[in-house]
């Protein structure tokens, strides 16, 4: 996607505004404390203590993998393997007093494994099996109006397709920031990138997504 100079200028201005926004440090919560205890129990040999963590983060881990890969079966495999990897590496896990250390660590594993799959599929030149809009997808809203449902479903499928068309390095920040609603601090912990870089990528990723959706919007308008 080509971006004209005016758009680039606008991006930079937005980034400056975002950078000026305060980044308040996340607070250590009772949930972090509970996760620390669960992890300590796991390390001590109580594998069952891992269950609450899997239940707590299965949705988020699966959603990130699904939005990164576009394939439900791949996302299931990646999510399962990421949890197992995390469990096997719990002895080396250090929260260092960081809030939400476990979830960001787990999501880093998910993102990295997802990227590995993307690279592997690109290398073998196999087209991704993108079935996110299939029958298994569960929608957020279930409007009672069938027409609105159909229209909403179509719009959602277009959005999912557009998201998958965004390059992976932009898609990952878009998924973490706009889909999963994580803070920049959390995304930095997951991707290990400077916050300024993340903000630039988010702005660009949004522009890419809008550009990808624009023709659809025009078509939609003409149809109406």
């Amino acid at each position: 996607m080509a971006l004209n100079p005016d758009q680039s200028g606008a991006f930079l201005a937005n980034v400056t505004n975002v950078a000026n926004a305060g980044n308040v440090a996340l607070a250590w919560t009772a949930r972090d404390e509970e996760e620390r205890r669960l992890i300590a129990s796991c390390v001590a040999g109580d594998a069952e203590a891992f269950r609450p963590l899997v239940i707590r983060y299965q949705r988020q881990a699966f959603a990130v993998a699904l939005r990164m890969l576009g394939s439900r079966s791949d996302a299931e495999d990646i999510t399962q393997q990421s949890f197992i990897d995390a469990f096997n590496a719990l002895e080396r896990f250090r929260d260092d007093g960081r809030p939400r250390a476990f979830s960001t660590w787990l999501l880093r594993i998910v993102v990295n494994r997802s990227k590995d799959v993307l690279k592997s599929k690109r290398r073998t030149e196999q087209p991704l099996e993108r079935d996110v809009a299939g029958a298994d997808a569960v929608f957020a809203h279930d409007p009672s109006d069938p027409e609105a449902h159909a229209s909403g479903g179509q719009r959602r499928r277009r959005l999912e397709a557009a998201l998958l068309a965004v390059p992976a390095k932009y898609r990952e920040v878009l998924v973490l920031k706009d889909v999963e609603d994580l803070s920049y601090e959390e995304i930095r912990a997951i991707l290990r990138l400077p916050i300024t870089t993340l903000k630039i990528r988010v702005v660009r990723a949004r522009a890419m997504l809008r550009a990808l959706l624009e023709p659809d919007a025009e078509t939609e308008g003409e149809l109406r």
Partner: protein
Amino acid sequence: MSRDQTDDSRPSGAAPAAPASDPLADELRALREVAPPASLVARVMTQVATPQPFSLWRWLRRPIRFEVRLSALTVLATGLVLTVGATALVRGARSSSPVNLAARGEVAAPVGARDSEAEPVLVRFVFEAHGARRVAVAGSFNAWKEQVLTLEDGASDGPSAGVFVTTLAVPRGTHEYMFVVDGRWIADPLATERRPDGFGRQNSLLRL
């Protein structure tokens, strides 16, 4: 999509502070609502409950955890002990230096004795032989190699006439020696002790 300009510290999953006006932002947020496979938890737990085969590499990489809990009083006491210990060590190191030892008579004495035992002693060999052309000394201290003595300067009829001298560094211990005067082996006439050389003659004895 102006959410990131309002509050970056909000915990993930919490409700936005202000309603987002951008429909695209809402739609993107709606994409998070997916249902993970119902069997995911069971599959993961089955896997993690299965004991893994022993791996030496994994065992070697296994971190060793230990926890130290200290009260403020313990920290202060430990700091005090360490400070006193370090001071004592520094003082000890200074007092044990050679310069200081030398300055202290009671310590310097044994050190000096030990050093002098190891060092050779300068011994002046003197042999009076009027008319002799060459005088040398040989002994156990120089593997019986002849060491030539020098004729002292002086009037032919003075007190030092015909006196050959040399000064050698001789290791401490008991040594046997002889003078060699113009090729003839002669025991030191001034030696206080002598010892048979096994060939019918006697060597002079030098105790240092």
